[in-house]
């Protein structure tokens, strides 16, 4: 069977490897992800360290913050295979993402698909260069996974909407510059319609965000209040009243990401951690725990293979529309099991309130709820993939 690796791709890999080794400062390689070690960009940027700043600036210069986005909007212009090589080589070196950003992960893809040429030219370069930090605002108190029932409303004032209402689970709402959000703009339309996808500048009096403290202690989410917030008509992405289409497209990204992230390249495997913490002899004395570690390793490998397959299917134009649902469901559940197994491995010591393992353990369950709860994923699979009937 022929392999994918055409010679030119191998050349590219060598070039990337050399460049990364020369340009990624040693001090920031192979560091645990998450917590407060990422750079998030924005109008008031905060760099975790000078070396992070250097790394970000070098990568941003090549637009490798967004390596596969089109060059005409400030992207890196790589093809999918090259993008994958860059990712692999960064993982190999233990290089961190230069820029963590909901603009990259979510808004950008939506704009590229649904945005006007003006919107693309205005927003995408700012995302690529980390100039604007974006927040996501879909859910509302009382609505949860039931996005169709949201009530934040935008009143048509001719050249702008006046937005009033409240969002919850706004990712990084209190740290962001702008927010992409779902707002009911057509009050007379049926429930599942009449919602528009709006880009709202948060630097105005009508927008206020306050953080929500999670059980892990993190404050990545917030509640966001809109009180006569002004949103220019030009800030509607996609058609008016069809924001649902944009949001669904984005949720697909979010779900795949949440599921795949489980197999994440960086960091030690659970088996490696287990051996480090208890040793082979210690594990032999606890066959139940050892078995749990093994099963999680097996399932993790399965998720990694699924992610690899998704990529290959993408290239072949054979992607199943339900892969994101599957990955989200199984990936987030697996993460809760993996982080819990880490808790057991560490025993009493891992109960420390400021421990990294405890933090990750408490971070995992919210992912089974966010991005459409896992029950919603099962509903989607049941109704759309299996075409099981609904009870009238």
């Amino acid at each position, binding site marked *: 069977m022929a392999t994918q690796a055409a010679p030119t791709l191998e050349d590219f890999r060598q070039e990337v490897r050399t460049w990364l080794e020369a340009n990624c400062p040693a001090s920031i390689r192979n560091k645990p992800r998450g917590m407060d070690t990422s750079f998030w960009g924005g109008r008031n940027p905060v760099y975790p360290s000078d070396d992070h700043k250097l790394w970000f600036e070098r990568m941003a210069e090549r637009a490798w913050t967004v390596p596969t986005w089109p060059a005409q909007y400030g992207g890196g212009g790589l093809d999918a295979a090259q993008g994958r090589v860059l990712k692999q080589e960064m993982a190999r070196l233990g290089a961190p993402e230069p820029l963590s950003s909901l603009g990259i992960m979510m808004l950008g893809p939506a704009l590229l698909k649904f945005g006007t040429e003006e919107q693309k030219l205005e927003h995408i370069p700012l995302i690529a260069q980390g100039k604007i930090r974006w927040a996501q605002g879909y859910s509302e108190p009382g609505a949860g996974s039931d996005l169709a029932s949201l009530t934040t409303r935008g009143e048509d004032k001719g050249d702008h909407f006046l937005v009033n209402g409240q969002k919850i689970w706004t990712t990084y709402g209190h740290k962001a510059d702008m927010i992409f959000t779902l707002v009911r703009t057509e009050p007379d339309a049926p429930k599942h319609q009449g919602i528009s996808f709006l880009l709202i500048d948060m630097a105005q009096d009508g927008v206020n965000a306050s953080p929500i403290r999670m*059980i892990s202690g993190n404050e990545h989410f917030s509640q966001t209040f809109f009180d006569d917030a002004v949103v220019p008509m030009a800030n509607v992405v996609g058609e008016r009243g069809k924001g649902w289409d944009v949001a669904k497209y984005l949720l697909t990204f979010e779900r795949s990401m949440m599921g795949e992230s489980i197999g994440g390249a960086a960091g030690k495997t659970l088996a490696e951690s287990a051996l480090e913490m208890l040793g082979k002899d210690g594990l032999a004395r606890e066959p139940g725990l050892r078995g749990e570690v093994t099963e999680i390793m097996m399932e993790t490998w399965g998720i990694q293979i699924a992610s690899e397959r998704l990529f290959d299917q993408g290239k072949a134009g054979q992607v199943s529309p339900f892969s994101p649902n599957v990955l989200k469901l199984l990936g987030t559940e697996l993460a809760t099991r993996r982080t819990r197994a880490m808790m057991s491995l*560490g025993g*009493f010591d891992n*109960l420390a309130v400021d421990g990294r393992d405890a933090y990750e353990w408490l971070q995992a369950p919210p992912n089974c709820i966010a991005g459409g709860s896992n029950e919603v994923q099962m509903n989607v699979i049941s109704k759309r993939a299996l075409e099981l009937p609904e009870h009238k």
Partner: protein
Amino acid sequence: MALVLTQDETMLVDSARGLLDREAPVTAFRALRNSGEPLAWDRSLYARLADNGLVAPNVAEADGGVGMGIAAAGLVMEQAGHVLAAAPLLSAAISATLIAGAGSESQRADLLGPLVEGKRVIAPALDEAARHDPDRLDTRAEKAGEGWALTGDKTAVIDGFDADAWVVSAMADGAPALFLVEKGGSGLTVERFVAVDSRNYAKLAFSGTPAVRLGQGDAGAAIAAGLDVGRALLAAELLGAADEAFGRTVEYLKERKQFDRIIGTFQGLQHRAARLYSRLDLARGVVLKALRAIDEQDADATWLASLAKGTMTRLSRDVMMEAMQMHGGIGVTDDHDVGLYVKRAQAAGELLGDDHFHTERLAAGKWGL
């Protein structure tokens, strides 16, 4: 052994629940946590519990207790689990068992009365490994004049920070023995351990620390009894906590609307709830059986303690996961009580051996596998 409560026990449960509901609701625990108070429990509440005979009710009448057995202590722990009451009840019952098992008559008289009255907090210090491993006993005791001197380290000491004294296991003359170490002893370092469940824990380091030996000879049996008691009581506490988290979740299912429906009408959630109900129903019998078996010195008592602790560790974990999931976003915020139950279940699950530990203990010890 009857697996139903006696009248006395029913009265005890009612009294404990009444007192705890009034004086130790979850809001009290939350306030204590937020205060950052290093003791992590409330002295006035503990005094009230002692006044009502709820501290170590297993202590025999001859030793100054109410003599209601471990079953009674377990029922109190179950109620405490419901409200997450922060009080050194568990450490008191374990220490009382250790002292009663190893101590001389005069030591029992001196130590158990004040313990039951809530006047002195004595914490058991048995563990030395991050993962519970009762076979590991590296702490050494050596003769030092009239008494003994301890050298070694202890971890996972429940209620061990700012305790008045500790019952410490150590090797003496080639056999396990138990010692009493008083607060402020020389060569003693007490390090506070701040855990996810916001309870009181310590790590202890002894370096030639003066200690009084409890009784004489091999204290292996007393230590084993203390472990059995601790495991059965933790199982009882986990039962209470799981029961409460489950009950609150079921109530939430009856209130919360999504997709124009009360979410409790979704059969997917109903069946998951029915399974948890069923497992809790079985677990209630297992926990009571373990408590009764200890009191009746049943040959299987130590295995039943493992069965109860292993079962409840796993079940409470599953209940807590479902409690978070079914509460949705709100359930994973710090403002909501579910997280407090989740964290306590994790800590109580790991203490004195988790599901993996007890499963293996039964496999090898009880069934010879």
